[in-house]
């Protein structure tokens, strides 16, 4: 099933090396991560090796190779967030979910990433859950905020 969807997606590209990152971005947007099967199919389409694809994909922090959780929580560690306690938030998320950044909880409820900057520095510290950005966050509000997501 997924191979058909991917085929259709790939047909929108020319198949040049330049298309590689946009293709990986489309795959991740659709399937949530880069699975081995999907990378294989993309490699055939681009006429390059799977290793080449993993070589490029692993360089960029955007790409993930494991299935994400139902909700994704990102803690901003930009400079403004750092001086206003971003690291403390990051630690608290890890403690609450019992995982470290880059991992997904065993019940797949959350995955947890740290990001370099969300660009909302004037309202630091900020976290993002799915598409929602929460500003002026504190350890205290963190738990009640996370509870909104099942």
């Amino acid at each position, binding site marked *: 099933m997924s191979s058909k969807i991917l085929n259709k997606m790939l047909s929108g590209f020319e198949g040049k090396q330049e298309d590689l990152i946009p293709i990986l971005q489309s795959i991740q947007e659709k399937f949530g991560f880069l699975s081995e099967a999907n990378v294989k199919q993309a490699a055939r389409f681009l006429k390059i090796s799977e290793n080449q694809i993993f070589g490029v994909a692993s360089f960029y922090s955007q790409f993930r190779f494991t299935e994400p959780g139902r909700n994704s929580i990102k803690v901003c560690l930009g400079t403004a967030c750092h001086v206003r306690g971003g690291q403390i938030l990051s630690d608290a998320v890890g403690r609450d979910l019992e995982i470290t950044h880059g991992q997904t909880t065993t019940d797949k409820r959350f995955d947890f990433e740290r990001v370099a900057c969300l660009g909302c520095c004037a*309202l630091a510290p900020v976290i993002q859950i799915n598409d929602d950005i929460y500003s002026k966050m504190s350890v205290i509000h963190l738990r009640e905020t996370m509870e909104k997501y099942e």
Partner: protein
Amino acid sequence: MNDFQKMKNAAQRKWDSLRNNKIPVIFLGTASCGRAAGATTVLDTIRTTLKKRKIKAKIVEVGCIGPCYLEPLMDIQLPGKPRVSYSNVTPKLAKLILESNLIKGNPLSKLAIGYFGDSIDGFTDGLPRFFDLPMLKPQTRVVLRNCGIIDPEEIDHYMANDGYQGLVNAFIKGPLDVIAEVEQAGLRGRGGAGFPTFRKWKICRESPGKQKYMICNADEGDPGAFMNRSLIEGDPHAVLEGLVIAAYAIGATKAYIYIRAEYPLAIARLKKAIRQMKKYGFLGANILDSGFDLDITIKEGAGAFVCGEETALIASIEGKRGMPKSRPPFPAVAGLHGMPTIINNVETLGTLPNILRKGASWYSQLGIQGNSGTKTFSLVGKIRRAGLIEVPLGMTLRKIIFDIGGGTLKPFKAVQTGGPSGGCLSGEFLDTPVNYESLAAAGSIMGSGGLIVMDEDTCIVDVARYFLDFTQRESCGKCSPCRVGTRHLVEILQRITRGEGKIEDLDKLQTLGETIKRGSLCGLGQTAPNPVLTTLKYFRSEYLMHVNEKHCEAAVCRALIEYRVVPENCTGCQLCVSVCPTEAITGPRSEVHNLDPEKCIKCRACYEICRFDAIAGDAIIIKSKRG
């Protein structure tokens, strides 16, 4: 060009009808910062209130006008009355303001912060003009002139405010005169390095190559910087018009915008603006009958800070790992696919339409000799009035931080300029005029414009560790001075923040930092040690305190602080007990609590929640809360 005048007239009518409105107009700042502050729920409330009360009004979503600390910002313009602005609008407040304004015609001036346009007796009494507010008055808005004023998704709003006039003027002049105009204006690259824009363009124009490329660098990877995001979200056409002008000047028929995937709203607005441009004939074949063709492709970055570096950015567009190459050849000679390529920053491009519209002599009068024009900054950190600002080059740091930003709550300690490639400057530099040379002389850089203000609650060693940790992780790994050297720097700094530093470590940081600067391949490594070197120079006593006394005065380095209960302040309310994740705090209600330092993981939850300042860190009693 006749068509242009017709389109402009139509746009003007549309804009005028909004200003000479027959129904109330509600402006709401819904840029990313506004949304983070809750603007979308305010928008929902506005919609339901209008519906419930059966009121006809127009809602205009605008970008960020600058004072992010006041967001969400909502303005109301009643027919025949000035636009009045309200800050920190919650859904409840929005409802109150709407009902008062739209039903009773009462602007609730006491709740408002300012008005736009002309003052009207009895309506704007006692209210200041918005642009006379202390944060805005010292500013000069050139690049940001439309941000927060127009609907960024309406090309007509942009055109009615002289949009695309610069492009028309460029076509009348011809490419060589456009380059000459930019030379006369004295525009230097706003991405940070400050290289004269015209010179780069000239090299590219004169380089042989079948295809030339124009690239807009919207990667904005500096943590603590959001000027480019705000400009694209608030006025995307300004950046796009600049991109077309630049492409025309260098003779490129293909353009790219390389933008961070973390900026979804900016990407969506660019896409929409590009569609509008095509419809109006500002893109595609034979733009405005000039004989010039241009296509723009948006490339989303995939999360690599090093891709802000020109050659790495090009590698990334080509679908490779974003690793820098040694230069020369410079991209202007051999860039994307080996062809002459120009990469300009978002702000540089956003400035161009203004120069072409109002002329080089007008622009060169702004700023100071050798540093003409304005620069946008994101003014953040421990500052009262945080947000996006634009000032003429040459303004002092003191004026920016204290007059515009309102200063710090606690005594000022340092300002970090230029992101991870920049440095921390101490109070003795506050009277330094901000320009490319003066900041470089102080050991920092202008960078793309992040200004992070720090007060006494910020530990300078921790900040240096933070930046090095960042650059170390973002190093592409191609050259060893950067890959190995930054890692070593981080390890030393970590040791110092844990209280395990030795006095020799300071010399090691110094020599290693200088070696990395000299030996690295690209700008990332060449500037990575700056935060360490500047802090060692200007804040040496703080390093010494960490090393010799194992003491962190700012109570930030976690290994060097301990939280404790201040018995005379503790009321025994048990709030801290309820939030402590490790049961380190105990105590019956109404009695002074006990904090077990063995169990405490220093998560700060108790400190944040205590309403009585009854939790303190280390030997230093933190008297007031973080602002």
